[in-house]
């Protein structure tokens, strides 16, 4: 069942990319999707299938809106730092803890952190994320966690766990 879902998703992406329903295209898509599913189906994170429950899907939409808002904010933040003559940066790598457990949620968290204002995920070991911060504003680990992962953790917990 899970494999079949993967297959359908892959076939959907293929059909969207080719955007035609000629039988050659569809046949090629079926073959490619089957191959990809057989070869890589095991490493495809299981948690992602849960997204299709209605409540999770709703929170996924909320997450998308919040995410886009933070990406735009991040860009103005970088533009401000780069174009300012004094370059107000105070970089460093900090360590924060996450309470998310599933791989999919952590992947989304790490990617979101990279695209939000002033932060870049360097590595993840166990429950800890190492994050390069362009402008460290507090020395207190608890506060750092609040500032960096707080926004997304709550939403992603609702989506994936």
């Amino acid at each position: 069942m899970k494999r079949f879902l993967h297959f359908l998703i892959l076939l959907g992406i293929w059909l969207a990319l080719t955007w035609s329903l000629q039988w050659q295209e569809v046949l090629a898509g079926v073959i490619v999707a089957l191959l990809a599913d057989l070869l890589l189906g095991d490493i495809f994170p299981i948690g992602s299938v849960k997204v299709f429950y209605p409540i999770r899907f709703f929170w996924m939409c909320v997450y998308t809106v919040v995410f886009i808002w933070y990406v735009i904010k991040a860009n103005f933040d970088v533009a401000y730092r780069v174009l300012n003559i004094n370059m107000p940066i105070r970089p460093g790598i900090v360590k924060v803890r996450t309470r998310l457990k599933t791989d999919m949620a952590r992947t989304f968290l790490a990617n979101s952190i990279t695209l939000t204002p002033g932060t870049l995920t360097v590595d993840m070991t166990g429950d800890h994320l190492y994050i390069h911060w362009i402008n460290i504003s507090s020395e207190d680990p608890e506060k750092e966690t609040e500032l960096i992962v707080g926004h997304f953790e709550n939403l992603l917990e609702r989506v994936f766990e």
Partner: protein
Amino acid sequence: MNETIGMTLLVVGITFDIVGCIGLVRLPDIYNRLQAATKCVTLGTALILLSVVFYTGFNAIGVKALLCIWFVLMTAPTGAHAIARAAHRSGIRLWDDSVMDKYKDDSEGSEDN
């Protein structure tokens, strides 16, 4: 109407791309440069692709552009993470004025070299 929106998005996207490139030149070390490159170039490219969608409408090209936005959003942060991690592992130090490096503190004890 659609052309106006597309043109606006195109200009804004290119502006962000330029800011990202300036950041790539101005910022002091690889980690800061990655920040500028990842954030600005991701949104800039996404906006340029979105302008393509507005120009061509919802057809073969537009849908490809939409899918490309998704791919860029998924892969750019992952690539940045891989580069930053590789740089840190191969011993590239942070900028001299950096405040702290918890990653180095933690990995020093566990690795042999």
